[in-house]
């Protein structure tokens, strides 16, 4: 299975370069923190309101942070044309995407976990009671963001105005993720049991649809 | 005949959008055609 062995090698490369500099992680964490604080100034929430709106704001912050974080994903491969050497080396170009999207999911999840205590304190939200469910929603949501984001960052890296283009392409596409994960997160905080099963299944469907599309069409994204 | 103005406005604006869209296409086509003719004249090889 050279797809998986290639993916593993590439993933370790992505993780190694990131944890050597920790550029992406620190920037993203700080960015989410800033956004969360600014939100609280903009709406000055009471406890009740913040339970209702907090998760939406959290996911919005995650979405914006992700669209920034995914920016360099393929852009940094262009510096030394390393994308070409990867394409020469791997047996299936999908492994390049797979490694990148797993790495991005992990980075995103890590920043979310770092942010969660701050979020719980600032917005006075009970995070712990349903923590395993929250973790599931965060994982599936981040996975969906990373799949679509990795694909689109490969597109935007080849266009002009790249930095502006990625959020413009990505954010409308991620509407379903935002809608569902924010709603499910609210239902977790308010202890409404009905929504979460269906919502989590829906997030799973989103991930599967886009992963399949990426698997089918990924190699066309990279060719010259 | 309540709301006649709204109904009227809706149809006019709707048709207007399509009409303007068509006009821009037609205008660009005629510009391109002129340009194509000009180029073809400078290039006797192309028929």
């Amino acid at each position, binding site marked *: 299975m050279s797809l998986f*062995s290639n993916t593993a*090698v590439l993933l370790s490369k992505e993780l190694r*370069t990131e944890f050597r500099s920790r550029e992406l992680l620190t920037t993203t964490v700080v960015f989410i923190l800033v956004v969360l604080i600014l939100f609280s100034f903009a709406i000055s929430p009471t406890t009740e309101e913040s339970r209702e709106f907090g998760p939406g704001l959290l996911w919005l912050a995650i979405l914006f942070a992700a669209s920034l974080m995914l920016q360099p994903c393929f852009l940094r491969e262009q510096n030394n*044309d390393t994308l*070409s*050497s990867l394409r*020469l080396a791997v047996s299936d170009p999908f492994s390049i995407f797979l490694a990148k999207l797993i790495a991005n999911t992990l980075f995103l999840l890590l920043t979310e976990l770092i942010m969660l205590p701050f979020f719980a304190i600032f917005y006075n939200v009970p995070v712990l009671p349903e923590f395993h469910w929250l973790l599931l929603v965060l994982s599936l949501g981040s996975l969906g963001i990373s799949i679509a984001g990795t694909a689109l960052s490969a597109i935007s890296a080849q266009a002009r105005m790249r930095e502006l283009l990625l959020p413009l392409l990505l954010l409308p596409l991620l509407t379903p993720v935002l809608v569902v994960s924010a709603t499910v997160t609210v239902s977790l905080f308010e202890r409404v049991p009905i929504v979460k099963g269906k919502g989590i299944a829906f997030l799973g469907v989103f991930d599967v649809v886009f992963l399949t599309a990426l698997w089918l069409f990924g190699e066309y994204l990279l060719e010259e | 005949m309540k709301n006649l103005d709204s109904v009227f406005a809706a149809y006019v604006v709707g048709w207007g959008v399509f009409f303007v869209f068509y006009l821009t296409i037609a205008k660009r086509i005629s510009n391109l055609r002129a340009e194509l003719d000009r180029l073809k004249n400078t290039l006797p090889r192309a028929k």
Partner: protein
Amino acid sequence: MPLIESRCRFCTRALRDTDHDPRVFLNTRAFLLRSRGAAQTKLTVDQNKLSPTGLRFESIEKRYGGLYALRRVSFEISPGECAVLAGRNGSGKTTLLRIAGQLVRPTTGKLSFPRGTPDATGSARPGYVGHSTMVYDELTAEENLLLFARLQNVESPVARADDLLREVGLYERRASLVRTFSRGMRQRIAIARALIHRPSVLLLDEPATGLDPIGITWLANSLRDLNKAGCTIVISLHGESEISALATRAVRLDAGNVIADTKTGASLRDILVYGAA
């Protein structure tokens, strides 16, 4: 003579006893000597062991919008040749090499590798040295080579990477980030990366860029050794140099067309330098 040393420097294939040349055995030393231009190592390797591969371009055309980068280019490079592509900037050399390296998809036409098509299993896949280094600045020299060795399932990647690092003279700097390298060192690591999977076809796009005279001598010698070991080489070059002296074939491109193509010595030089056949 320790037997373990009697290997081709680039592909670590065992040399036949008759091929023994005492100067090969001390790889590092031999390299140092040659890089000073002091010694000319001669290396003969059994060609059949590299499963020689040629390159065939069949009416290859590449169009960017209305702009032709290549127009119906057809020629064949036989296995074991060392071909030089000449031509002015923008004549299509890079595009042709990138098509040969399967990095660029031709608009029309067919590329084939007679005797062994490139597949996932490594060595039949061309090695490619481009304008950029094609390695990661944020990784060390050794990590880079290991990454590409592992991606291509090279046997015992660590030993292979170390061998190549010694070969290109970067063994002492193997643990430094590529970011800290000079232009010439980058070119050396770029060449090492292209060779990591023991390709039987090597494509080099103006490989002398950034190399000092010593580096050019080193490169010319290395390419000669590789070529003798059965590796088909295609280089794009400007003007005459030690590297162009290796050419057994010269092809001149102009505005995406092949305008001259020769294999014989006298006119070969003309094509390289003046562009006339």
